[in-house]
């Protein structure tokens, strides 16, 4: 898969059932995708496989992911401002 295709695929995975998640993920892709390492990308894919409600809890601090890498990624996605 080339990089452009990978980004397109990720973009569709970022379409969620809640506006808040749509906005968080899309601004992260726009601002940070080009700087992601392949490990970061596989973390992102892992994160995107979680259910919307769980993601919402993580992003709005009702809960914390047990996995350290996901915890860092959640914090990073939250901290992008536009």
């Amino acid at each position, binding site marked *: 898969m080339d990089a452009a295709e990978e980004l397109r695929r990720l973009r*569709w995975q970022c379409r969620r059932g809640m506006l808040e998640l749509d906005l968080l993920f899309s601004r992260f892709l726009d601002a940070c995708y080009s700087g992601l390492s392949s490990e970061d990308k596989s973390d992102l894919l892992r994160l995107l496989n979680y259910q*919307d409600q769980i993601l919402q809890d993580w992003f709005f601090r009702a809960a914390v992911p047990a996995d350290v890498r996901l915890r860092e990624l959640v914090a990073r996605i939250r901290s992008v*401002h536009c």
Partner: protein
Amino acid sequence: MSLPKRRFDSLIIGAGGAGLNAALRLSAADARVAVVSKVFPTRSHTVAAQGGVNAALANVLPDDWHWHMFDTVKGSDYLGDQDAIEYMCREAIPTVYELEHAGVPFSRLDNGRIYQRAFGGMSQNFGGDQAARTCAAADRTGHAILHTLYQQNLRARTHFFDEFFAIDLLRDEEGAILGALVLEIETGAPLVIEAKTTLLATGGYGQVFRTTTNAFINTGDGMAMALRAGVPLQDMEFFQFHPTGVAGKGMLITEGARGEGGYLMNVRGERFMERYAPKALDLASRDVVSRAIATEVREGRGCGEEGDHVLLKLDHLGRDVVGRRLPGISEICRTFLGIDPAEEPIPVFPTAHYAMGGIPTDRLGRVVAPARHGPEEVVPGLYAAGECACVSVHGANRLGGNSLLDILVFGRAAGNDIIQFLKEKPNHRPLPDSAVEPALARLARWDRKGEGETVHAVKADLRKLMEDHCGVFRTEAVMAEGVDKLKALRERIDGVRLRDHSQTFNTARIEALELDNLVDVGMATLMSALYRQESRGAHSRVDFPKRDDANWMKHSLYFREGDRMDFKPVRTKPLTVESFPPKERVY
């Protein structure tokens, strides 16, 4: 024709609560069912519903489905069809128990019964004391319902086409619906799904407005597909707005913020609600507050670089109150605005939330449209349910907790009627090549190469146009100008070109197809709003501030061909009880 083709008894487009509840009925009855969803089913917008679902179970306070019916008719500002409302309120009770048995983890009372909370617009005894009617699974009711229904469908062997995008309905010369052309998003390959019945359950279209609470997927695809198949859309002028969404983003800042003492301010630092509602101030009714905000912005007293919002001030409440009583707001402000509401005011603007209008159906979920023999003839083979449909139980305004109910009750009703249809008509109708051609042409149009405008630019203009000309500030002049501008914008679509013509995961192409749909439902909304010269429910006009039952107690219908408007009567006769005649609404 070399297109791949699949055959099912029934095709369901949309995997939210409405689509999944219909699918479950059908699979349980051993019908061959295909469910198509552009996103993974449990990412449907139903997941966002937190509040709950209404049913007169009387677990906390006395209750009766007839009282629920009264509240719904009144809430609809008497535009709801009373036969459908009676049906929904009666069916609410078995529907909630059915969900309970299917495994939805409703919150419970100490005695083990389902807990019910009080919500606005709900009364006991036909307008008496507050009722407690809303059943919730903590603050994740939509999520619990959606996941439960999805699991049950997997068990019942419903066939899912995940991440397939429906392009258009297939129709023969007699107007019967034969299935749909869909696109596999991963490969970009078109697929014909042939079916004896097709159910549209594609949800709402809040994305047509710049500021909305709706997720990106809510683009009115099913509604626009119906329009292109010659079916009108009903009551599209009725769109529910919340006064305070985060400006430029859309998510809700709850009314609780003003309840705790927060107030609105314009660029001059004036507490402007003093001028619009001297007594109730910032706690005036939603439409008054929404229109006041829009008026401040229109008259040049908006804040920010573009002057396009006002400010909601909470900092005077103190960090303790803001942090303790409004924790959700603090999180939203920090995450999306990078501000702390205990220190800085929040930029806000009215946000589009819920579509009351949609594809006209009867209470069995069958799509009905005016034809030779009257205003409500069944379109053979076509059904609709959920937010994309207009049955019409919400009329001019929806009560909180009634839309999850609507999607479940009418999803199920449609499923039941389809089972009957399949018994009576066990064979597929012939599918001529000519039925697929218009849909293929629509898809091929996006293969055109060369210079042109981008989808993104036209979409942004559309959403701004709808907000400015068909938002909460509605007058003849504002909307007539909007229609002219929208007609011009519609012409621009022809000049839009994609930069990316790849096949796999070409999301740009999907967004282009969604833009077509948004333009069509936008025109339906704007035209219907321009025509209705009265204020009723969520449609409030500055130039016609009163409800006008003599002339306007009727449903509007917008047809795409020739942008034509028509009307049909409201069904004021319930199934078994007396009608509720229109009264002035006072809360």
